């Protein structure tokens, strides 16, 4: 826990968790509707 209380490490870990979580939310919730979230990037 003490390492996580280091602000730099805390920001990096938080960013990884939050960005990963929201990317999953975007991808899977679009997928569940039969839509492709990465449509633009596949063109």
């Amino acid at each position, binding site marked *: 826990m003490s390492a996580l*209380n280091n602000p730099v490490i805390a920001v990096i*870990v938080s960013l990884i*968790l*939050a960005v990963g979580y929201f990317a999953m*939310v*975007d991808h899977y919730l679009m997928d569940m509707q039969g*839509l492709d*979230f990465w*449509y633009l990037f596949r063109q």
Partner: protein
Amino acid sequence: MGLVTRKSLFAIMGLCAMVGLLLLPIVMALPSLAIGEEAPAANAEKKEGDKVEKGRDVYYKTEGIVMGAPAPKTVDGPRDYPRYNFESRVLLWFANQQHLYYGSFVLAVPIFCMIIEFMGVVTKDKALAKRYDQLAYDFIKISLTAYSLTAVLGGILIFTFLTLYPAFFGYLSGIFRPVMHIYALMFVAESGTLYIYYYGWDKMKEGFLKWIHLSMSVVLNIIGTLLMFLANSWIGFMMSPAGVDEQGRFLGNIWHVIHTALWNPLNLHRILGNMAFGGGVVAAYAAYKFLASKTDEDRAHYDWMGYIAMALGVAFLIPLPFAGYWLMREVYAYRQQMGITLMGGLLAWLFIIQATMIGILFLSTNYYLWQAMGRMRGAEKYQRYIKYLVFLLACGYMVFITPHTMVMTPAELKAMGGQQHPVLGNYGVMSAKNGGINVIITTTVLSFVWYMRGNKVSTVSWAKFGNIFMGVFFACAYFNIIGLAVYGYYIPANVRVGLSVPQVATTLSCLFFMFALNGVMMKGAKQMGPIEWGKISARSQYALIMLATAFTWMMGLMGYIRSSVRLFWHVNEIMRDNSPWAYTHTVGFAANMISFNVLFFWVSILFVFWLGSLAAKKAPVEAKAGVPGAVPQPAASH
């Protein structure tokens, strides 16, 4: 049960007998429903050999034996549309709206009572438990007088229907005949349960009897909710009929008539709306009492009451736009043209007004919370960041209320280069609006989180990481919501339409995860000072009144929109409205009518509050006593 005395046992038995008697009419009504359903089979046997006419359900596409008369083809005249020297539709609009306002209020308040009474029963702090109990009692007391008025207004509504729209009402009551009496009997059961619940409060205040009393509030709310669902089935049938053939003849399956395409979305939308409305009205009542209070104790009590009512109301307000989206989605799925009329055609400007009102609701809530932070020592640290929240809210609000196109003169049209503004016009599409409203709601969640931790400092060992994670999570949520809104401009409409789901999920993630994380972090937190109830600016109380008024206005508006979307149909595509008033009013007329309804409701409910104050029950001394500023202590329960 060993603790239950003989006297208590008799009381419980008496109570059970009373509740059983109250519920008996409903049980007795059920066989008649069954008979109604068996009737076609019986008739079929009786008329064996005779030709049995069958029809096809307009929505479910199933075949059924025709059991009712076709929808009447009305003509404009005294037979189908008797009238006074006034527009009948406006009279009906007024009667309907007032009944709905009061109905919503008296259905919502018992749910609040149930929640607050439960909080009082389970809390270990005895002083706080008494305060919760007193608050729940205050809530039900307010609704009791309103309850009689709801019944009176219901009677007026029925007479208005019978007098001014006899053909239509005859048809509708014919279709819903199997459940009409159940509705009436459930109303009797609801009234009886409410009176026992209210008048039995003192007699059932301790021990096992208190749990019985609490259970009665559950029964009360189940009956109330079922009543609302039944009433919703009528408007659901008028908008998206089912269970009848194309001539409007009943096909024998009452469940099909009730369970129409829009019934469930309407049920969810209305229950959330009622709760938010009820919270707003009680908060406004508390605000009024706060402003009129002469003592610090009263101010502390009504400040707390206003906060609890507002918090409960907003808890249901936050998911309301999502329920609205579901309803609209189902409307589009049922009839695309109906959806276009609502959001892209004749009624689209009313949705801009609706967006304005939704924005006002959230702005008022945030303003109240920022003002409320003033009564906490330690919350000053957040004050300097509020301007950033104002910026986010203002941006979200401006995008949310931007219309797609403007009504203009030819000269204005030429000057702007088209109906759509070259820059601002881009914000008038759903992609931007979804982003706008989600930013507003996420900011409201953030304001709540700040409020809940205002006077506390977390003592958990990972507090620093928790705070940083919370900040990063909110920042990423904003980035995701706005990013998805921008992304929507670059992809085709059939893909874009799905982006609203992850946007909503992002907002709800903030709501649930951040509330939960904050709760864990603040468990056993160090308090910088007590919440000084009563020491809040008068402006905050006006924000509560604003919240309630805006909600009342929005309810009137949305009711009008929902009803107007049928255009010239009494029952969509089944029974045509041939009265002279089968046209859509101008936006100005509708706005004036809604304002009149809002004004009438608030004047009448002030009268109800005044009546209630005449018979005010003196609060238990211990419940109101205490040092102002130190009590009550709901902060610990945040």
